[in-house]
């Protein structure tokens, strides 16, 4: 509870004694590049294979002659949009961006760079952390859209190239019975997960004490706590918005 209280104070401190708007814009653009662009390849690879595997495994399990082939694509779509694209990508991002954020801030802490900002009268939490959170909340939904698209495309490639499903069946399957709310749900999840990953990782990094070993510990802790928070939030959002 003490840590949670400290985390809330940390978040609150971001909004007091802020710097100029233009300095945040520059920093946020730079963070968007780091979080979004630099994560594109890993997100593309994981999501393409995720979709391919989902299609193959769904087809393997749906063996009844009463179930039509297009259902494989339908199941893939639902799994990808509702769960895999936002949640699995969040875990990948927690590992890549979260650990990098925590180790970056941890290194700044132990090398007195954060102290230097404070001595200059800069609110270091606001200056260093707020742009990261804003950038994550802007870029992560875009990554989820790309992940969703590439997962469906991966499923299409795996399905059609192995003969599990025809192109027409797959396209029909991903269109039939589509509920647009699932996309909104995925976007809500994306924004919440982005906030959790970036804020928890920044918190872990910002309060690093000690030396290089502790930076590593903060980085690992950031990933572990972010992933747990994402999974917990995933369940709560599903209960709140789908039931």
């Amino acid at each position, binding site marked *: 509870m003490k840590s949670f209280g400290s985390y809330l104070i940390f978040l609150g401190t971001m909004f*007091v*004694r802020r*710097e*100029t708007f233009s*300095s945040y814009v520059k920093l946020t653009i730079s963070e968007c590049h780091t979080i979004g662009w630099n994560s594109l390849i890993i997100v593309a690879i994981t999501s393409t294979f995720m979709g391919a595997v989902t299609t193959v495994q769904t087809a393997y399990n749906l063996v009844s002659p009463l179930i039509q082939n297009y259902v494989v694509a339908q199941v893939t779509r639902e799994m990808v949009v509702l769960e895999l694209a936002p949640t699995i990508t969040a875990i990948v991002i927690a590992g890549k961006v979260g650990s990098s954020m925590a180790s970056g801030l941890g*290194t700044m802490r132990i*090398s*007195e*760079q954060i*102290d*230097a900002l*404070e*001595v*200059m*009268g*800069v609110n270091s939490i606001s200056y260093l952390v707020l742009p990261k959170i804003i950038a994550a909340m802007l870029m992560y939904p875009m990554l989820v859209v790309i992940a969703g698209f590439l997962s469906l495309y991966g499923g299409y490639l795996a399905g059609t190239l192995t003969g599990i499903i025809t192109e027409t069946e797959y396209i029909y399957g991903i269109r039939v019975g589509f509920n647009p709310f699932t996309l909104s749900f995925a976007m809500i999840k994306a924004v919440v997960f982005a906030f959790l990953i970036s804020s928890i990782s920044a918190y872990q990094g910002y309060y690093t004490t000690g030396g290089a070993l502790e930076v590593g510990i903060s980085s690992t802790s950031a990933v572990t706590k972010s992933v747990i928070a994402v999974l917990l939030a995933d369940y709560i959002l599903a209960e709140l918005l789908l039931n």
Partner: protein
Amino acid sequence: MIEVKNISKSFGDTQILFDISGKFERGKTNLIIGGSGTGKSVLLKCIVGLNIPEEGQVLYDGRKFLEADKEEKAQMRREIGMLFQGNALFDSKNIEQNVMFPLDLLTDMNKSERLDRVNHVLERVGLENVNKKMPSEISGGMKKRVGLARAIVNDINYLFCDEPNSGLDPRSSLLIDELIQEITHELNVTTIVVTHDMNSVMGIGEYIMYLSKGRNVWEGNSDTILTSGQEDLEDFIFASKFMKKLRKSL
């Protein structure tokens, strides 16, 4: 002038500073000296507000720093420049951007004025043609000088240096010490240097506060320190073989 009154500071159950008082005058290089773990850096961090003492007062030319509200404190911090032990240069910025950083955030200068000011202070600390280099591309001594340039780039009234010559060879240490003293006199700022380097103590110690086990046990200057008669201080000063020989010759 900076005045500290009855500063006490603990971390958990361990008390680091005990009722420390002292006056650091403007235009002088004021030194806080003592062995490792005696609370020198903690006292410095209490003075600049990075640590908050449980008791005591810090006065910047009569202005109460610890009791100031956020705006007043921010304003006073803008008058402060600090050279950190590990330089604290921002890894992601080049030398020019590092030195310009306080001007970007704290002044209304246009780009050309800021660049002129950056070049002026870099030249003042003896650095030229390093603007576009990254901190990782320059030597330890140059990093210290960049740190010093960043500390004085704004119109400061107070300069703090935390072990400015740690990790430097004797010649570079001497250069940094001389720069700090020259800048203190030139800009007429209140300078506080935390050090345990005896060359610095003898070279630039216009006022010296000696801390032992978190207590202020002696005050004086480089002229009086060798004949202080304070047993603990003498153990500290004459710890090396060279200084022991020197002591015998005194």
